[in-house]
């Protein structure tokens, strides 16, 4: 986007999730589902076929527990899903850094799901169904998807649009400040959101601290969602070789 003078600084929206504050209540998961018109579980859905654009994992290691909210990490280095989509149904927006999925363009080949190492993408295995009347309570700002397409977190792009329109109406230019649903909903204020390009912002400062880390740093996806913990074992587990459970 450009202002009258022609040059506008692009934003890189990112997050820092404080794992020491997250207590696994799941408020963020529900706020995300409400905001993005995610349907309730289809008949026969399981934790492997459900749609949870934001999903909190309970990671237990030798009796120690940490809750890890995982959403699309909005990778910016050779974004794996953007590179592999055969019809450009997902793009890294250079103005915001948001990796935006276009469900209306999606063929449903699920190659992006194979490419994403964070398992942050979800396929609509069934047509969405809401109990009778509940479609009246859908969020008007987000289009419901149909079956056969992939969806994921898009950092509440609809809220960014709304904030941008309001800012434009006020004659402002430059990166806008807005709050995604999960950030607003977290009772423990565990998620900090903002423009990583703004060095003075809280999110940029937190991302630079020693306690901050990213999952799968060794793959080099350039994830814009940082995590932080004062607990050494949590940071260590992000660097340890995969051992998995089960």
């Amino acid at each position, binding site marked *: 986007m450009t202002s009258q003078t022609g040059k506008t600084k692009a934003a890189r929206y990112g997050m820092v999730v404080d794992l020491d504050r997250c207590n696994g209540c799941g408020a963020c998961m529900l706020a995300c589902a409400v905001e993005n018109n995610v349907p309730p579980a*289809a008949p*026969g859905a399981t934790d*492997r*076929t*459900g749609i949870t654009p934001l999903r909190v*994992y*309970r*990671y237990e290691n030798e009796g120690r527990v940490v809750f*890890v909210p*995982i959403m699309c990490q909005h990778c910016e280095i*050779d974004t*794996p899903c953007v*590179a*592999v*989509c*055969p*019809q*450009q*149904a997902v793009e890294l927006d250079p103005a915001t850094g948001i990796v935006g999925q276009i469900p209306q*363009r*999606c*063929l*449903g*080949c*699920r*190659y992006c*799901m*194979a*490419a*994403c*190492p*964070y*398992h942050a*993408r*979800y*396929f*609509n*295995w*069934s*047509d969405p169904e809401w109990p009778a009347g509940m479609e009246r309570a859908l969020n008007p700002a987000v289009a419901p998807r149909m*079956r*056969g*397409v*992939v969806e994921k977190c898009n950092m509440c792009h609809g809220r960014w649009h709304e904030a941008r329109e309001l800012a434009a109406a006020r004659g402002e230019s430059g990166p806008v400040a807005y709050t995604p649903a999960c950030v607003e909903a977290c009772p423990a204020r565990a998620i900090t959101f903002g423009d990583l390009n703004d060095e003075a912002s809280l999110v940029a400062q937190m991302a630079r601290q020693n306690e901050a880390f990213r*999952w*799968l740093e*060794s*793959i*080099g*996806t350039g994830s814009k969602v940082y995590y932080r913990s004062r607990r050494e074992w949590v940071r260590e*587990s*992000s*660097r*340890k*070789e*995969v*051992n*998995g*459970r*089960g």
Partner: protein
Amino acid sequence: MAVASTLLTIPESRPVSDRGLIQRGLDRCPLPQFALWIAPWAALLAFGLYAAYLCLRLGLNQTNMDNRFAFGLWIFLDLTVIALGAGAFFTGFLLYILRVKELRAVIQSAVVIGFICYSGAVCILAVDVGQPLRFWYTFWYPNVHSMLTEVTFCITCYLFVLAIEYVPQVLRNRRLRQAPGALVFEFELHKLMPVLAGVGTFLSFFHQGSLGGLYGVLRGRPFAFREGFAVWPSTFFLFVISAAAVGPCFIALITALAEKLSRKTLVGASVYDVLGRISGRLLIVYVLFKTIDTLIWINRTSPSHGFPAHRFYQWIPFGTAILLAEIVLFGLLPALLLLRPRWRARRGLLLTAGALACCGVALNRFVLTIQTLAVPTLPFDRFLTYFPSWQEFGTFLAVIAYGVLLYSFSFRYLSLFPRERELAARKERS
């Protein structure tokens, strides 16, 4: 003449007969017997079409694929049949470009096999994607960075090429050639054959490779990710070599099966020898490259991504035995069997080696599709397993049935094997 004596005498008064459709001089079983052969495959096809219908109507929740196993039985099968169908382009390349004349005896059969494999794969893909009506988006909004775009373009074009190569055979059918213009059309197409072979080779090279590239570029999956040359990971080249190696094996197997079922000799023994020899050489090259590639992956690529390779093999049934089976049992062993002329000469050994090689390719595609998705990437991930649902099996079986049916009809009504008459006469005389 000798031909007349070999004709099956079918009483002219028999009411149901397709004699008029069968090529003159060719010996085919009576229609009722053929119908008996076709019936179970037709039933299987019907069942499979119903399974596919369920998936299209009710959605992909009919399968056992899930968010973790985004690819399942169908993708694995697509890759395998396309690799097996590579015999079509490779035989064309060998015959028309490298002038290996023995292969003229099997080129038409190879084209039919190729057509079956590719059209079957495309049909499965139509069911596998969530929104089949949006297939044209890939052509309209192509992503030049994506291997899958390349695959889509090339497979579609190559299917078109195969159709053009198949159509002349159909037009040469005894009844159809009587249609005005059919022979002219067929003749014109025939002149294009070397060009088509060249185009087919080019397209095939790229899509066989891109299918390998699909997995090799997955940076997020250190199990599958490989380094390579420019934009092409090593799996690109490994897939091309393995497909070229296995294509001739599959043609040999199908030819042998057709001979067995029809109780005729359809090709000379030298054809098997040529197919086996070419396969053997390519297989040994493949095994060599695959071993080098695996060693590089174990020692450099995977650890540099933070994942020691042995960690991927700690879950049953994906232990290191799978890796060894793929390279040694289903790679090195058939290569050695096919390289030695004395072993190659023994039909049983040759066909066994061919079957082993085909299994090896299938196992390779399986490992890259299923094992890649089964192994966890994050510490709070789990190793998961997947088993296809009956709808998935049904759709797969529909393609098998379709292949058998199409090949059966082609064999019966078209002249797939140009030397059939000559070999039958020779057999009659001896």
